[in-house]
């Protein structure tokens, strides 16, 4: 017998189980895998509030200052009364000025100043310098898959038990020097914190948020198949739940046609003629900028489960993703030439954890004469292909399939390390094959 899949029920069930294990379980750690847009932040905030309400002093470890500030703001939004400590570095401008407006948030560079507050939040790097006489009863470690094992080693003495939350599909942490000599060791310092944690504590309860609320029904299967083949997830919405409409009709140009394709199907591939180009391929850069300009000009509107009325697709709901910083800079300049200044253009690294209605992506392999491990990294493509609620438009030169064939995967294999992800080469092919069904060829 088959029952209809109820995403809300599945997600609620998962969240309840997580909170139960966290608050009432006996294990020292609880691990939660969260695919893109599965409500990780919501979970972290909820767990923090429930722990605080239960009277447990809590420390929260995030990986970047932006993530820390974001969590502080979300916590204050949910419970403005909650006394929160923001532990920050002693550099200039160590935290978001928006925190200054929050009455119950205390900020300090010294942990001692924040003693006794219900929740204290900081980055892993800052926590590593904290000496505590008495460990915290509880901790939440956010973006735990992006945290290196050695960073966890430096802070794990500060807490007795912890909830580890993260997305295993995003960019892995890395070291700037070789660390092969420790590969295969359970505590390889360059591995992710979760890998080490689970290697030493295999019996910890592990949960998975099963539903992506961000990715539309058109995207979740592809992203799940290509990047989470062993831990599949579903979209929280159905095929008819999200719609992207455009008030201004197509002018028949390539960018307009790809916008229409993406509005219709959720994916669009704007394919430029095959050519080897430098990273800042002027034609591809202009094509990305033109797509963004046309998206704005055509007065797009997004309808979703959030509101029955269409929401205008404004510049802040669109983002452009690239592999390299110089590409982002070139696209920003091209957008400025077209009079667009308020669309976010950034690299995959910086777009991690962010969400938009429509994303325009310059394919990491577009026009490249070679494909390096950097460009084939699974997480990079995964981040770029999973930031959108409605549609993702990829701009790419033809010939990436052949390029991939010339750069086969010959990854070394370390004995004793687990295999979690599809090969970057394989994932790239999978995504490419899917995009080919939504191709608009264009010669600018």
């Amino acid at each position: 017998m088959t029952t209809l899949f109820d995403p809300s029920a599945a997600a609620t069930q998962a969240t309840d189980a997580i909170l139960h294990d966290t608050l009432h379980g006996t294990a020292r750690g609880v691990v939660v895998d969260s695919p893109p847009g599965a409500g990780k932040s919501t979970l972290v905030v909820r767990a923090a509030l429930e722990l605080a309400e239960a009277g447990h002093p809590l420390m929260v470890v995030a990986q970047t200052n932006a993530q820390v500030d974001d969590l502080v703001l979300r916590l204050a939004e949910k419970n403005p009364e909650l006394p929160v400590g923001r532990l920050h570095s002693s550099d200039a401008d160590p935290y978001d000025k928006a925190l200054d407006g929050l009455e119950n948030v205390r900020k300090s560079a010294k942990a001692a100043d924040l003693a006794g507050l219900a929740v204290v939040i900081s980055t892993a790097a800052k926590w590593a310098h904290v000496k505590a006489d008495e460990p915290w009863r509880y901790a939440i470690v956010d973006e735990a898959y992006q945290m290196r094992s050695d960073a966890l080693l430096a802070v794990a003495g500060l807490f007795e038990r912890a909830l580890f939350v993260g997305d295993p599909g995003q960019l892995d942490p890395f070291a700037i020097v070789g660390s092969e000599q420790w590969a295969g060791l359970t505590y390889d310092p360059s591995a992710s914190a979760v890998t080490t944690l689970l290697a030493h504590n295999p019996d910890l309860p592990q949960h998975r948020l099963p539903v992506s609320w961000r990715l539309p029904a058109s995207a979740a299967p592809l992203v799940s198949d290509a990047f989470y083949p062993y831990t599949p997830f579903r979209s929280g919405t159905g095929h008819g739940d999200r719609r992207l409409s455009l008030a201004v009709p197509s002018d028949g140009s390539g960018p307009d046609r790809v916008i229409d394709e993406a509005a219709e199907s959720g994916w669009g591939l704007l394919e430029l003629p095959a050519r080897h180009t430098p990273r800042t391929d002027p034609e591809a850069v202009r094509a990305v900028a033109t797509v963004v300009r046309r998206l704005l000009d055509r007065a797009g509107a997004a309808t979703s489960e959030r509101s029955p009325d269409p929401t205008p697709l404004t510049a802040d709901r669109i983002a452009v993703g690239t592999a390299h910083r110089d590409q982002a800079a070139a696209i920003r300049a091209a957008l400025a030439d077209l009079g667009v200044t308020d669309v976010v253009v950034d690299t995959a690294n910086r777009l991690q954890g962010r969400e938009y209605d429509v994303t325009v992506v310059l394919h990491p392999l577009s026009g490249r004469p070679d494909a390096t491990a950097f460009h084939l990294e699974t997480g990079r493509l995964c981040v770029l292909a999973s930031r959108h609620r409605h549609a993702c438009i990829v701009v790419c030169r033809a010939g990436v399939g052949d390029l991939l064939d010339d750069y086969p995967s010959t990854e070394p294999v370390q004995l004793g390390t687990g295999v979690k992800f599809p090969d970057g080469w394989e994932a790239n092919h999978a995504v490419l094959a899917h995009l080919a069904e939504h191709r608009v060829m264009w010669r600018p």
Partner: protein
Amino acid sequence: MPPPRTRGTALRHRLAELRGPDVPAKALDARALAALAANPGCARRAILDGAGVNKAALASALGSPSAFGQSQFALTRGNAFEAKVKADGGAELLRLVHEKLDRTAEPPTEARVPDLTATGPQGRTARTALELREAAAHPGAWTLLDHPMLALDVAGSPAFLEPDAVVVHPDGSWTVVEIKSFPLLDGSADPAKVGAAARQAAVYVLALEEVAARLGAEPEGCAGGEGASARRPEGSSTVAPSTPAEAPRTRSAQDRAPAPRVRHRILLVCPRDFSNLPAASAVDIRKQRAVTARQLTRLTRIEDIAETLPEGTCFSPELPADELTAAVESVPATYAPECLSACELAFHCRSRSRETGAVTSLGRPVRAELGGLTTVEDVLAAARGEAGDPDDPAVAALRRAAALRAEALEAACR
């Protein structure tokens, strides 16, 4: 639908012609598999391997002999180690399989070790398939196949493969065993070598899965393959040609012949530390299997490459060097320095690549920032400002690089 018989025969005939009269076909050995993995896009390598040409002999005949050779010390020790691992009816090998992969099974106190001798690769392949079917008729027993022979369709032509061993577990599942002579030192081994072994094993697993599927299809002739995709109700896997799940355990309508499961963890056996004692490690090859499966689907068909060759092309080492050179030149190669460690023909291709001034002869990464410029002279002319469009970012960057480099060298001279 199988292709008409005449077509297959025609291709075999054509490949035999390419090889030369009376030259026996060479099996796809570990090096050929490594070359396939290192450079699947090279048409020259593809047709030569596909036709079973002995590339080492060809390279010598071309005047650029390959640098590969095997020291007899390595050979002796490698063979002796393999013999030691397989001694006593494979007792130690089976013990390792049991310990590393199948601890819940009955320990292998005794095992079936069928004789796989037969004439020619086709004969040995048939014999192997027969013994695998026979093993399926002995549930609960361990079976060791020593040097079985498998066939796999590579780019439209059958390639013969010879794994070191395949073990049939009591539950009927199959494990590929690779015996290597590099050491497992304090539990870890050279990652590049383990990677190569894993890719090699992945090819064997794919070949075994074909045998398994045929066994599963008997006797009702009911082919399957739904086991894995049934996992996902939306039926969304239009993407991957292979599912990452383990091979389907298909059952025919009458629930008769379950297709044997080919395990996706293989056993790698190496000498332990500085001794000659065997140590083993299970290697998960799901990634390599998925990659290889996709690679195989993307290979240009040998037939299509063969069609582009001029009538009468032949790679027989008996031919004079200039004729051979012309024959080899008639198939394009994609040389990169990585070929040097994988392909016997690499020195020949390298000298050709250098003659044409291809920048890739300096390594694939060199091209990264050169855009459409592909030869040494084009790049240098662009850098010197003698050629190239200054609005092309690659040309602009080259000129900036050249200016900065000149400035720095001048500063150092002062």
